[in-house]
């Protein structure tokens, strides 16, 4: 069953009197459990498309269906609730909250979605931190962690609430190649273990090897849709 369906999605930005088209009509279907890479040159529309899918922005025209729900039918609160329960985000600049520890940054995400008992919550957070290789570092604040460790916290934060979809916008852009590889392997592992659907954007050809499906975007249109490894759901 399709988790995500985009029909002729267009996004036009207004810069003064000039209209700048970022997406020119995207048609896309993403199945549950897919691990998809979106690549393309800077300014091709990758981030814009992820923002549309992540309910952070609205298309100028066209429609998006998320897990059977038409996004255009939802108001701001409805979109916020959909993001809260169904979508995890990973950004290249991590966007962790500096006053919270690694544990608390992850705890924050799960506190928003469900009322767990203290013990359940702690187990869940500690498990996910262990899974991303941060065992023993849970009490550290972001400024006490390396770039790779911060991104692992961001991944744990995105995954702890077990979302249907994880969107990652150039998650390895600020990392060296070794750390970048570790982070991508971690995402693949999570995809395989939890069956979470991943869509991430990149312009680094090295990281595309990890994807099951590769979408190339050029000038606001999907110019190529290649499928590699088999789906987890298969």
């Amino acid at each position: 069953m399709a988790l995500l369906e985009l029909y002729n999605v267009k996004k036009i930005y207004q810069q003064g009197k000039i209209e700048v088209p970022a997406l020119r009509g995207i048609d896309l279907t993403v199945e549950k459990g897919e691990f998809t890479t979106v690549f393309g040159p800077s300014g091709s529309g990758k981030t814009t498309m992820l923002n549309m899918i992540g309910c952070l922005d609205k298309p100028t025209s066209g429609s998006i269906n998320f897990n059977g729900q038409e996004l255009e039918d939802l108001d701001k609160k409805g979109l916020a609730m959909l993001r809260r329960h169904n979508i995890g985000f990973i950004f290249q600049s991590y966007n962790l909250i500096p006053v919270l520890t690694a544990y608390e940054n992850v705890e924050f995400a799960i506190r928003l979605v469900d009322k767990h008992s203290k013990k359940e919550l702690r187990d869940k957070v500690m498990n996910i931190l262990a899974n991303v290789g941060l065992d023993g570092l849970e009490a550290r604040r972001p400024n006490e962690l390396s770039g790779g460790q911060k991104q692992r916290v961001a991944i744990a934060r995105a995954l702890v609430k077990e979302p249907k979809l994880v969107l990652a916008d150039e998650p390895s852009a600020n990392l060296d190649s070794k750390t970048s590889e570790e982070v991508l392997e971690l995402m693949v592992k999570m995809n395989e273990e939890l069956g979470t659907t991943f869509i991430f954007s990149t312009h680094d050809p090295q990281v595309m090897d990890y994807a099951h499906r590769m979408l190339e975007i050029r000038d606001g249109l999907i110019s190529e849709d290649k499928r590699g490894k088999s789906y987890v759901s298969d």
Partner: protein
Amino acid sequence: MFLTKLAFKNLIRHRNRTVVTAIIIAFAIFIFILMDSMIGGMTEMSYNNIIDYEAGHLQLVNQKYWEAEEELPLENLMVVNQQVMTKTENIQGYQASSPELNFSARLNNGTNELPVIGKGIIPNRLMQVFELQDQFVVGEMFSPGEYKAVMGKRLADLLKLDKGDYITLLVKDKNETFNTIDAEIAGLLHTGNPNINNNIVYLPLDIVQQSLNVDNQVSKVIVRLENKDLALGVANQLENNLKAINDNWSVYSWDELEAVSVAGAKEMGNQMILAIILLIAAIAIINTVILAALERMKEIGMMKAMGLQRKEIIYTFVLESTGIGILGGIVGLILGAFGVWIFTIYGIDFGTIMGSNIEMASFGIPVIGKMYGVWNPESFLLVFSFGVIVSFLSSILPAYWAASKDPVEAIYHS
């Protein structure tokens, strides 16, 4: 709960900024408490000055005279007989009473003249009602029947008069006939009440009654009680008793006088000024919230991506600001309490601050020598609550602005 925890953790995020903002609030609260104490002390002294030198605790007067009192009429006067005095002396807390006959006059020193208010009084009774005994700069109070006068030192200085000099008061008697009263200056006063210092000339009652042709009538009777809190209740009781003698007679307590209501109005004006001080605290909070929001723009974007609603983001900012308000409020209260404690014990000598040649009484502030503050626990509670509420309210708008940012713009904010 987690958002509450986050808000309080944000308090220590930029410790210096939090401390500076809290100090501004604390300073505003400190100044408010100190000024409130000073105004309270000044008001108290002002009331005492009115009571001790001008109005006593109660005034027995003909209602028609009271209505025209500013013109100092010689009509609708009262005769104080034994029956009236008995009823007056029997009231709760009675200490003393002093009849006075007030009139307008022109004071002449032979060369120049000034308009003044003359008061015909019985010296020993006046001294029992008013605190004039220790206020003589030169000379002393005259005796009944003597053609002598007592006036303020400042008034005497204006006309270059001194003890032993002779003055002439030009008056109009009850029949609108001009008359003069000649008297020797027996003493000069300098009180905390500028009105007494600048405008009043005391003369023996019997001489004034004779000169004004009003027989044994007086304008009013001033009554002193054991304490001023009794005044209002006793005034009503005495008025009811006196109505049986003369339906026109009324009794006014000190707090019904116009001068007192003016002092109250001054206090209200000062409260307005103090509100401006707290406005400064509000601006500090707004500034802090806007700075924090600009710094945390990406974080706000991330929070929105995580599904936080606008109201939840506003909540974290508002709670953080309220925390700063509470912090500043507590420090302000401690500083304020310390300041008031010092102020009530040691006081402030405005004469020293302003220079020895300048008196606060010259500016209409009835203070001579040191002025002491008063404790007002209500103001502590009020200003603390106000400080916290101001911190809370002033953060809502900038927090709303921050929380309304487009999530995409916020996330990719640079």
